[in-house]
């Protein structure tokens, strides 16, 4: 692989691959960056490139490399709380490709998430802001909102599930809409 091809590959897939690696497990941003870097370097060294340079195929190939590196990384770390195996990683890959990418690059999904966030009820929105924007722990959130920690946890989980459902409907509607327009 030439440097030019590598550069094109990196610029096309780096953001998606970074998201993917962070999705696979709770790793720090520095670890995710290292894994992404190692993935591209492994691709660069590889002598067996995919037959087609179609972006979707290349992305799937890079995700395969990243998955194996992630598995190796989890095995290397002692007392690693991330319990993962190849079967669960395969399942995660299926969710990523089927749910998030949907034959695209996930941009529709992110756009749909932005729209759905506007419709979240105020209490749930406050919880999301406390957790994701302000970086509060569950205990702090529980104290602020006069709830139990378990209550906070289940509320957050329900909110994420509701958001996922909203996104799914919105994306499906857009697909139908664009189909009928054509």
């Amino acid at each position, binding site marked *: 692989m030439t*440097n030019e*091809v*590598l*550069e*094109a590959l*990196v610029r*096309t897939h*780096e*953001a*998606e691959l*970074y*998201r993917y690696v*962070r*999705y696979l*497990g*709770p790793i*720090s*941003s*520095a*670890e995710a*960056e290292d894994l*992404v*870097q190692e993935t*591209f*370097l492994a691709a*660069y060294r590889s002598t067996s490139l995919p037959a087609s340079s*179609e*972006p*979707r195929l290349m992305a799937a190939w890079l995700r395969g490399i990243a998955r194996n590196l992630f598995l190796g*990384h*989890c095995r290397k*770390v002692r*007392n*690693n*709380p*991330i319990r993962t195996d190849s079967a669960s990683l395969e*399942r*995660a890959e299926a*969710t*990523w490709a*089927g*749910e*998030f990418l949907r034959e695209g*690059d996930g*941009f529709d*999904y*992110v756009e749909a998430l*932005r729209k759905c*966030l506007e419709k979240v009820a105020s209490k749930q929105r406050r919880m999301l*802001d406390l*957790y*994701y*924007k302000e*970086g*509060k*722990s569950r205990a702090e959130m529980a104290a602020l909102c006069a709830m139990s920690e378990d209550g906070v946890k289940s509320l957050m*989980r329900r909110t*994420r*599930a509701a958001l*996922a459902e909203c996104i799914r409907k919105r994306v499906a509607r857009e697909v139908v809409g664009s189909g009928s327009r054509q």
Partner: protein
Amino acid sequence: MEVHDDDQDRLMDMLLREELGGQRPPQLAERILQRAKQERASWWRPRMTPAWVAALVAAAMVAFVVVPRLLPSKAPQNVAENPKQPPKQAKAPENPPEETEEQEEPELKTPVAPTPAPPVPPVAPKIAEKIIRSEDKERVVELGDFCRVTLAPFTTVENKVEAADSKEQHILLKEGSVACEVDSKKGKFKVEHALGTVFVRGTKFRVNTVKHEGHVRRLTVGVKEGVVFFDAPWGEMELEKGQEGGTLLGLVTSVGKDFIEVRADGEHDARKYSPRWVGGMDGKFDRQMIERLHDYKPGMRVRMIWKFDERDRVLGIEGIDEKPAKREGDGAKREGPRRDEKPDAHKDPHKDADAEKRKKEEIQRREREAAAKREALKREGDAVKRDQPRREEPVKEREKMDGERR
């Protein structure tokens, strides 16, 4: 496809961290390319040993000896098939017509143009593929016999119409820039993008996108000929020949009496956008737009549609609830533990936020101290220079020597 709840939850968690927590994908290209360059250098060094050089020279010599012997071996066969034909002519397929007619094989008797054909210009292939991508150079594609789309390097578009000869062509611009030439009499064409759609009535235009932190943040449309209609969820406009406009996401930096200043994501400097001018010579700025502009305060994130008409004009604006994007290059500094540090995957990333904040403050404090120190050293240096006596001695010595010579 069955989606597992845990995977779904993790996916949402990751996206919410990105959207609300501002943990956007970093730009790693420079770092990765640097490493690749180093690796390549280290690959070549051990291979270019004297043994390798000797092997290469030997291979070249063998090729030099063997190849010329192999090449003419075809010629005698041709001579045997057609003894009249000299070996040179047998090798060349594009012979003059009178010579080819002498040959016995019927397919060689077909008339051949007497002059060599002019070089064929590169013909754009008819594309039926879904994702069209240009690598490191421009690529030209023809859609439906009436659209000629030139993709700038590193551009990706999705062809939304499967039939290559359809009279309604539609592409989705994912990243990069496209220049389109459309014969509007033959069919309809539109370029769609998440930030807006360009409908074509005219012939030549260019659509350009700017990516920032993994997302396309700015879309610019420039019209060379004809008219295009641009439609975005937060406004619409018509662009005529020579006009430029587009849509962007950015940060409000100031709001004046009749303007708003916005720094678009991916740009270093903010630009002033004024409302439309209404009423000709005795007219004034669009009052409704001025009122709308005053609803926005510095620091707010907005998306807007703009057009260049003597100056940058804002035609539509909408606030967005989104964490302010960093400036270009801010994300280059690496945060978190270094590669040689012990990884701490079991740590909750949220708990690290305070530590990271403290670390950032510490780095900023150190930088300030270093700058102050540099300033002090510079001042000291200037003072020393001022205090030093002027170097007159060498001049005096020279005069003395001149006098002695005389």
